[in-house]
């Protein structure tokens, strides 16, 4: 417990295995504990395949744990909930709807009256600087704009948690930096809890109040790094550099370990095939 608060999101011995048709169950996430506090900005990082998406899908209710439990606000997560919106790397916008209609869809699901929904949708669009693009379809928007619309759609329903699975990974470096700043700016107004998956270590240090480092084979929580720097952060600052170094070193260990395990596994296979 931090500051005597109770956690917003808790993974209690939560694990996930997939039963592929071929062989034994594949452990995507070994049973583990993780607490996330209300209003916290947590970045999940780790090598590919270490279970980052699995964790965020469990918390969002898209998947169920095969062991342990996932709790939000003290209740087990059984299915997705509009109070907790997921932002995807490939935006998840409906291509046949305009930017405005995409945002209205979320509000319509909430049963909000037409007039009120329109007002909120336009406000959300202006919040991400896209008022002029309300009537455009997703294919007429750049990747950065699409992700802004997805963000506006999520924020319009005023969720208490935002799950983001590599949301900026498909964008070019400039757009990514812009969106990072915009995300922090939006968070100033309403302090929602954000769980942010990324493979960009700089991004994690720039955004997160805490970084959860994960390791593969089997996927697990390896390390917690608290980034005790005020926003907005300065990438050229020496404290920033210190955290960056710390994270890179921790990541390097995980990375090397993963490589060693993989080599071992391959070695065993080679021996096996040699016989």
């Amino acid at each position: 417990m931090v500051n005597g608060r109770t956690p917003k999101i808790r993974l209690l011995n939560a694990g996930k295995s997939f039963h592929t048709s071929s062989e034994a169950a594949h452990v995507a996430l070994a049973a583990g504990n993780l607490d996330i506090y209300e209003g916290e900005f947590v970045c999940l990082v780790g090598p590919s395949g270490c279970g980052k998406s699995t964790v965020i899908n469990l918390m969002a209710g898209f998947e169920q744990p095969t062991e342990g439990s996932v709790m939000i606000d003290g209740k087990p997560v059984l299915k997705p909930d509009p109070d907790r919106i997921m932002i995807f790397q490939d935006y998840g916008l409906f291509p046949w709807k305009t930017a405005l209609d995409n945002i209205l869809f979320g509000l319509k699901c909430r049963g909000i009256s037409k007039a009120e929904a329109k007002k909120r949708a336009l406000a959300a669009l202006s919040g991400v600087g896209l008022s002029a693009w309300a009537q455009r379809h997703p294919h007429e928007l750049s990747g950065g704009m699409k992700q802004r619309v997805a963000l506006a759609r999520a924020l319009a329903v005023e969720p208490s948690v935002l799950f983001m699975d590599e949301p900026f990974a498909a964008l070019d470096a400039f757009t990514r930096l812009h969106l990072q700043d915009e995300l922090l700016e939006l968070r100033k107004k309403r302090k929602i809890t954000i769980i942010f998956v990324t493979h960009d270590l700089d991004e994690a240090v720039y955004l997160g109040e805490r970084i959860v480092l994960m390791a593969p084979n089997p996927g697990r929580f390896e390390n917690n790094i608290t980034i005790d720097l005020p926003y907005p952060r300065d990438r050229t600052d020496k404290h920033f550099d210190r955290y960056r170094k710390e994270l890179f070193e921790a990541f390097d260990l995980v990375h090397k370990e993963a490589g060693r395990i993989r080599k071992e596994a391959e070695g065993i296979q080679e021996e096996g095939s040699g016989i």
Partner: protein
Amino acid sequence: MAEKIQKFFLPTLAVVVFLMIWQYAASHYTPDLFPGPRDVFLAILELIKVGRLWKDITISLTRFSIAYSLAVTCAIPLGLFLGRCRPCHRAIDPVVQLLRPISPIAWFPLAVLWFGIGNTPAIFIIFMAAFFPMLLATISAVRSIPAINYKVANNFGAKPALVFLGIIIPAAFPGIMTGLHIALGTAWIHLVAGEMLGADSGLGYLIIDARNFLRTDQIMAGMLLVGILGLLLNKLITAGEQFINKKWGINAQQ
């Protein structure tokens, strides 16, 4: 400029060359055996003069519209349902795959036995020709809706009715449109067959009737008209398809 040449000039040239080859080939035979373009053109004028052409075209188009809309209204809802219900699709698929390869024309003896001569057997055959491609296209359109659409709808708490009307229908629409296009083609091809076999009016019957009187020019006139009308229908539906694809942001290959 190059665009214009490609779009208008070259196709026109192709038609002219086609007519020339036709004329050249026909010049080796008597008009009774292989009429040339001029003979066929005159035959069409004659058909207009005796007031037969419009009557046959109207009858054919009416039959076609009835059968095609009937097939579409049966196939789309069934396809939407089977596309969503995997166990139902698994259960029904063998029956569909068994019936589908049977040529609609093979149904003809039964169709005449059941419905007699007239509109109904022709409509039945066109229906059979349009139904299966439409059904299969709808099923595959629904099944290829990206899972992320459902995830998003689910996340915002969309009710089943909204998922159906707001996600499934519009997301499957371009695929359904392709189905409409394919079904239109196969149905039109079988219109002539249906009318040749079991009707006493329409373009198919016009061709059979002309054969009975050894009017080869009218046979070819009938064939040409079937082709031209098919072309126009195709143009119509392609325009509709392009409109949809543009709206949905799908890059249509021209």
